[in-house]
């Protein structure tokens, strides 16, 4: 199955960071990269979901940050001029009062993404990247 080895770069092995605003923790952040050999347009992301310690993170609590901009997941299908360079880390901010407990956590990242040049006979290849990794929160 083509492309599968690239999933190894999907979840970045960096620590999860709590986000503080003037001393108040309003959420936490982790980083992901686009799992392929080349970058893509954000509009090619058909689904993007995360589970932290087995629990689905509500879509409305997620802000996707890339290229010095912030996107709602619902905005991604419209982002056909926004390119995600393959070595660029996107920040996923999760809004959660109090943030995340320090220590180890299990993150599952799931992305359904269209490969935009593969419509050889009409159908585009749509891939599932489904990665679970253990990350440490500081």
């Amino acid at each position, binding site marked *: *199955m*083509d*492309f*599968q*080895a*690239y999933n*190894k*770069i999907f979840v970045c092995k960096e620590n999860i960071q709590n986000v503080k605003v003037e001393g108040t923790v309003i959420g936490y952040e982790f980083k992901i*990269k686009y799992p*392929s*050999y*080349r*970058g893509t*347009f954000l*509009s*090619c992301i*058909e689904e993007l979901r995360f589970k932290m310690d087995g629990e689905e993170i509500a879509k409305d609590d997620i802000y996707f940050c890339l290229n010095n901009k912030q996107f709602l997941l619902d905005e991604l*299908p*419209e982002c*056909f001029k926004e*390119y995600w*360079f*393959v*070595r*660029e880390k996107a920040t996923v901010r999760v809004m959660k009062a109090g943030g995340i407990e320090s220590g180890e956590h299990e993150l599952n990242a799931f992305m359904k993404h*269209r*490969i*935009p*040049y*593969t*419509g*050889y*006979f009409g159908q*585009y290849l749509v891939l599932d990247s489904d990665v679970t990794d253990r990350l440490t929160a500081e």
Partner: protein
Amino acid sequence: MSDIKFGITLYSFSTEYIHEKLDLEGVLKKVKDMGYKGIEIIPAQMAPEYPYLSDEWIEELKGLLVKYELEPVCWSAYIDMGIRSDRDLTEQEIIQYTVNDMIYAKKAGFPMVRTQHAISPEIFRKMIPFCKQLDMKLTIEMHHPHHPEVPVWKEFFEIMKGEGKGYLGYVIDFSIYQTMPHKLYLDQALEYGCRPEKLDEIIEMHKKGGDMEAIENGDYNSIEKHTAEEMFGKFSAPARIDQIKDTIDCCFYIHGKFYYLDNSEHDPCIPFEELIPTIRNAGFKGYIASEYEGHHFDETIDSEEQLTHFIELNTKILDAIQD
């Protein structure tokens, strides 16, 4: 001295590049150290500003090519037809992407842009004046699952041999001649849950033409069924090598695609021993790019070692026919 030279697409080092073991300069230094001269770049992979490249970045790239004494050969562009969620790209958008790639390639000193089949015969033809204006070759890659019998290629060849002669051409990718699944593919199938004895059965069935009905009705789990379907579908209809001579005059460049080489003697998947002499005897002059693609399947493989096998194997084949 042969008219055939072996170059390299930087894409061969995808594993090292995306895992941040080598950056663009690191890859260029590596290919220089390996003895390569002609290079191909995929800007969608290695240009952080893609798809809108600044003159500063292009100057930086040119500087690196000079520093490592490398020859720019091919600028690999895409027709990303499915960028938008609501529709395919329009003709105007395809032209815009293609024009931009040709401008960037020209500025960076590349004599050729590789594009993809989705450009369509109509738009391909419309690019001729711009090719002439920039003195730039524009080529379409013939990549699996396409092959010379796909109807649109008849039209492409007519344009290449007719009004686009000398400017419009194509790039053969050796994926179209693959006859067998490669080792990394088979290892992955086992990792995903194929039972070894069942995988052997599927391979034997594939050699006899592939019977999907027998798979559907037999004792096979879902990953085994998927593997059989993919194997029978992908590797059962390789393009005919004897057809190469018919269109070699339009072939400006070749992707020496390979997935895994266990040694420098033979590849059980792609028939290099037939391909290289046929290409040479047909009169091909130019670069065959070393294109390692096992990185799709396994990131633990050493790309440099794979490329060394590729060069040794194919140099041996080429030398043998020149003696």
